[in-house]
Protein backbone atom coordinates (compact mmCIF):
# COMPACT_ATOMS: atom_id res chain seq x y z
CA UNK A 1 0.00 0.00 0.00
CA UNK A 2 0.96 3.65 -0.22
CA UNK A 3 3.30 5.03 2.37
CA UNK A 4 3.36 8.43 4.03
CA UNK A 5 3.53 11.20 1.46
CA UNK A 6 4.49 14.83 1.91
CA UNK A 7 4.20 17.84 -0.34
CA UNK A 8 5.88 19.83 -1.55
CA UNK A 9 9.16 17.94 -1.46
CA UNK A 10 11.10 21.20 -1.72
CA UNK A 11 10.06 24.71 -0.78
CA UNK A 12 12.02 27.93 -1.09
CA UNK A 13 10.59 30.89 0.75
CA UNK A 14 11.69 34.44 1.20
CA UNK A 15 12.09 35.52 4.79
CA UNK A 16 8.76 36.71 6.11
CA UNK A 17 6.61 34.56 3.83
CA UNK A 18 4.09 32.05 5.16
CA UNK A 19 4.40 28.39 4.13
CA UNK A 20 2.16 25.36 4.43
CA UNK A 21 3.50 21.81 4.41
CA UNK A 22 1.19 18.88 3.83
CA UNK A 23 1.33 15.33 5.15
CA UNK A 24 -0.79 12.41 3.94
CA UNK A 25 -0.39 9.59 6.46
CA UNK A 26 -1.00 5.94 5.76
CA UNK A 27 -4.75 5.37 5.59
CA UNK A 28 -6.24 4.42 8.95
CA UNK A 29 -3.24 5.44 11.02
CA UNK A 30 -4.33 6.95 14.30
CA UNK A 31 -1.17 8.76 15.30
CA UNK A 32 0.64 11.46 13.37
CA UNK A 33 3.90 13.21 14.26
CA UNK A 34 5.83 16.15 12.88
CA UNK A 35 9.60 16.38 13.32
CA UNK A 36 12.14 19.03 12.30
CA UNK A 37 15.53 17.85 11.05
CA UNK A 38 18.22 20.51 10.78
CA UNK A 39 21.21 19.87 8.56
CA UNK A 40 23.51 17.28 10.10
CA UNK A 41 21.20 16.62 13.04
CA UNK A 42 18.69 14.02 14.08
CA UNK A 43 14.97 14.73 13.85
CA UNK A 44 13.46 16.71 16.71
CA UNK A 45 9.85 16.32 17.80
CA UNK A 46 7.47 19.15 17.00
CA UNK A 47 3.93 17.95 17.62
CA UNK A 48 1.69 14.89 17.90
CA UNK A 49 -1.91 14.16 16.85
CA UNK A 50 -4.13 11.32 17.92
CA UNK A 51 -6.81 11.33 15.24
CA UNK A 52 -7.85 15.00 15.02
CA UNK A 53 -6.75 15.92 18.54
CA UNK A 54 -3.42 17.66 18.96
CA UNK A 55 -2.24 16.12 22.20
CA UNK A 56 1.25 17.57 22.35
CA UNK A 57 2.68 20.66 20.74
CA UNK A 58 5.51 21.15 23.16
CA UNK A 59 8.17 20.92 20.45
CA UNK A 60 6.88 23.77 18.30
CA UNK A 61 9.68 26.37 18.42
CA UNK A 62 7.48 29.46 18.47
CA UNK A 63 3.95 30.69 18.00
CA UNK A 64 4.75 31.12 14.31
CA UNK A 65 4.37 27.36 13.97
CA UNK A 66 0.90 25.90 13.76
CA UNK A 67 -0.29 22.39 12.91
CA UNK A 68 -3.72 20.92 12.28
CA UNK A 69 -5.36 17.64 11.36
CA UNK A 70 -9.04 18.58 11.17
CA UNK A 71 -10.50 15.29 9.95
CA UNK A 72 -8.02 12.96 11.53
CA UNK A 73 -6.20 12.14 8.31
CA UNK A 74 -4.28 14.77 6.32
CA UNK A 75 -2.21 17.19 8.39
CA UNK A 76 -0.80 20.60 7.59
CA UNK A 77 2.13 22.31 9.28
CA UNK A 78 2.03 26.05 8.78
CA UNK A 79 4.91 28.41 9.45
CA UNK A 80 4.14 32.11 9.50
CA UNK A 81 6.67 34.87 8.82
CA UNK A 82 9.44 32.39 8.04
CA UNK A 83 12.94 33.05 9.36
CA UNK A 84 16.25 31.71 8.16
CA UNK A 85 16.52 29.47 11.22
CA UNK A 86 13.37 27.67 10.04
CA UNK A 87 15.38 26.14 7.18
CA UNK A 88 15.29 22.39 7.73
CA UNK A 89 13.70 19.17 6.56
CA UNK A 90 10.24 18.69 8.04
CA UNK A 91 9.36 15.04 8.50
CA UNK A 92 5.92 13.60 9.03
CA UNK A 93 5.41 10.14 10.53
CA UNK A 94 2.32 8.06 11.23
CA UNK A 95 1.63 5.05 13.37
CA UNK A 96 -1.27 2.64 13.19
CA UNK A 97 -2.24 2.66 16.83
CA UNK A 98 -2.03 4.87 19.81
CA UNK A 99 1.42 6.31 20.04
CA UNK A 100 4.12 5.11 22.23
CA UNK A 101 5.94 2.00 23.04
CA UNK A 102 6.65 -0.62 20.50
CA UNK A 103 4.71 1.01 17.70
CA UNK A 104 6.76 1.67 14.62
CA UNK A 105 6.53 5.14 13.15
CA UNK A 106 6.40 5.24 9.35
CA UNK A 107 8.13 8.28 7.95
CA UNK A 108 7.44 10.33 4.86
CA UNK A 109 10.19 11.62 2.55
CA UNK A 110 10.15 15.05 4.16
CA UNK A 111 9.82 18.60 2.89
CA UNK A 112 13.08 20.49 2.58
CA UNK A 113 12.38 24.13 3.44
CA UNK A 114 14.94 26.78 2.55
CA UNK A 115 14.34 30.31 3.76
CA UNK A 116 16.33 32.98 1.94
Amino acid at each position, binding site marked *: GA*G*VSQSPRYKVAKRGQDVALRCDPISGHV*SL*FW*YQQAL*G*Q*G*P*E*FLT*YFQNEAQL*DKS*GLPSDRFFAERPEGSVSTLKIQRTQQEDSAVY*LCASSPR*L*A*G*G*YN*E*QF*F*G*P*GTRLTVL
Partner: protein
Amino acid sequence: AQTVTQSQPEMSVQEAETVTLSCTYDTSENNYYLFWYKQPPSRQMILVIRQEAYKQQNATENRFSVNFQKAAKSFSLKISDSQLGDTAMYFCALDSGGSNYKLTFGKGTLLTVNP
Protein backbone atom coordinates in the same frame (compact mmCIF):
# COMPACT_ATOMS: atom_id res chain seq x y z
CA ALA B 1 14.40 14.57 29.96
CA GLN B 2 15.58 11.92 27.56
CA THR B 3 18.85 12.12 25.68
CA VAL B 4 20.41 9.96 22.99
CA THR B 5 24.08 10.20 22.10
CA GLN B 6 25.78 8.81 19.03
CA SER B 7 29.47 9.50 19.33
CA GLN B 8 30.52 8.36 15.85
CA PRO B 9 29.59 10.96 13.23
CA GLU B 10 30.97 8.82 10.40
CA MET B 11 32.08 5.24 9.91
CA SER B 12 33.13 3.14 6.97
CA VAL B 13 33.35 -0.59 6.38
CA GLN B 14 34.32 -2.88 3.57
CA GLU B 15 31.64 -4.85 1.82
CA ALA B 16 30.97 -8.21 3.52
CA GLU B 17 32.59 -7.13 6.79
CA THR B 18 30.96 -6.41 10.14
CA VAL B 19 30.52 -2.99 11.69
CA THR B 20 29.14 -1.80 15.02
CA LEU B 21 27.48 1.55 15.59
CA SER B 22 27.35 2.92 19.13
CA CYS B 23 24.52 4.58 21.00
CA THR B 24 24.09 5.61 24.61
CA TYR B 25 20.96 7.08 26.12
CA ASP B 26 19.54 8.45 29.31
CA THR B 27 16.04 8.20 30.70
CA SER B 28 14.48 8.04 34.12
CA GLU B 29 11.83 5.59 32.95
CA ASN B 30 12.13 1.91 33.68
CA ASN B 31 10.16 0.60 30.73
CA TYR B 32 11.07 2.14 27.43
CA TYR B 33 11.80 1.28 23.82
CA LEU B 34 14.82 1.72 21.63
CA PHE B 35 15.01 1.84 17.87
CA TRP B 36 17.53 2.05 15.07
CA TYR B 37 16.32 3.88 11.98
CA LYS B 38 18.09 4.02 8.62
CA GLN B 39 17.92 7.08 6.35
CA PRO B 40 19.43 6.36 2.91
CA PRO B 41 20.56 9.35 0.83
CA SER B 42 17.51 11.26 -0.41
CA ARG B 43 15.18 8.55 0.77
CA GLN B 44 12.85 8.23 3.68
CA MET B 45 13.66 6.89 7.08
CA ILE B 46 12.86 3.26 7.74
CA LEU B 47 12.94 1.14 10.87
CA VAL B 48 15.83 -1.30 11.09
CA ILE B 49 15.34 -2.91 14.49
CA ARG B 50 13.70 -2.27 17.86
CA GLN B 51 14.16 -3.40 21.44
CA GLU B 52 11.91 -3.35 24.48
CA ALA B 53 13.84 -2.48 27.62
CA TYR B 54 12.19 -5.14 29.74
CA LYS B 55 13.34 -7.88 27.38
CA GLN B 56 16.82 -9.09 28.20
CA GLN B 57 17.25 -10.93 24.92
CA ASN B 58 18.91 -8.85 22.25
CA ALA B 59 16.80 -8.24 19.15
CA THR B 60 17.93 -9.56 15.78
CA GLU B 61 16.64 -8.95 12.25
CA ASN B 62 18.53 -10.91 9.62
CA ARG B 63 21.96 -9.25 9.32
CA PHE B 64 21.15 -6.65 11.99
CA SER B 65 21.45 -7.25 15.70
CA VAL B 66 21.74 -5.13 18.81
CA ASN B 67 23.78 -5.31 21.98
CA PHE B 68 21.49 -3.90 24.66
CA GLN B 69 23.19 -3.19 27.98
CA LYS B 70 20.46 -1.76 30.21
CA ALA B 71 22.65 -0.96 33.22
CA ALA B 72 25.14 0.87 31.05
CA LYS B 73 22.33 2.50 29.00
CA SER B 74 24.00 1.35 25.83
CA PHE B 75 22.32 0.17 22.63
CA SER B 76 24.72 -0.64 19.80
CA LEU B 77 23.83 -1.89 16.33
CA LYS B 78 25.84 -4.60 14.62
CA ILE B 79 25.59 -5.04 10.88
CA SER B 80 27.00 -8.31 9.58
CA ASP B 81 27.97 -9.05 5.98
CA SER B 82 27.72 -5.35 5.09
CA GLN B 83 26.21 -4.57 1.70
CA LEU B 84 26.51 -1.49 -0.50
CA GLY B 85 22.83 -0.80 0.13
CA ASP B 86 23.55 -0.39 3.82
CA THR B 87 25.17 2.97 3.07
CA ALA B 88 23.00 5.48 4.94
CA MET B 89 22.61 7.65 8.02
CA TYR B 90 21.70 5.55 11.02
CA PHE B 91 19.78 7.09 13.89
CA CYS B 92 19.34 5.66 17.34
CA ALA B 93 16.01 6.67 18.92
CA LEU B 94 14.33 6.36 22.31
CA ASP B 95 10.69 6.21 23.27
CA SER B 96 10.43 6.54 27.02
CA GLY B 97 6.95 5.08 27.09
CA GLY B 98 4.26 6.24 29.49
CA SER B 99 2.85 9.55 28.33
CA ASN B 100 6.03 10.37 26.44
CA TYR B 101 5.28 8.95 23.01
CA LYS B 102 7.66 11.12 21.05
CA LEU B 103 10.89 9.71 19.70
CA THR B 104 14.13 11.30 20.85
CA PHE B 105 16.84 10.84 18.23
CA GLY B 106 20.62 10.93 18.31
CA LYS B 107 22.54 13.01 15.81
CA GLY B 108 23.17 10.02 13.60
CA THR B 109 26.11 8.07 12.20
CA LEU B 110 26.88 8.19 8.49
CA LEU B 111 27.86 4.69 7.45
CA THR B 112 29.61 4.16 4.13
CA VAL B 113 30.06 0.64 2.79
CA ASN B 114 32.98 0.46 0.38
CA PRO B 115 33.22 -2.07 -2.46
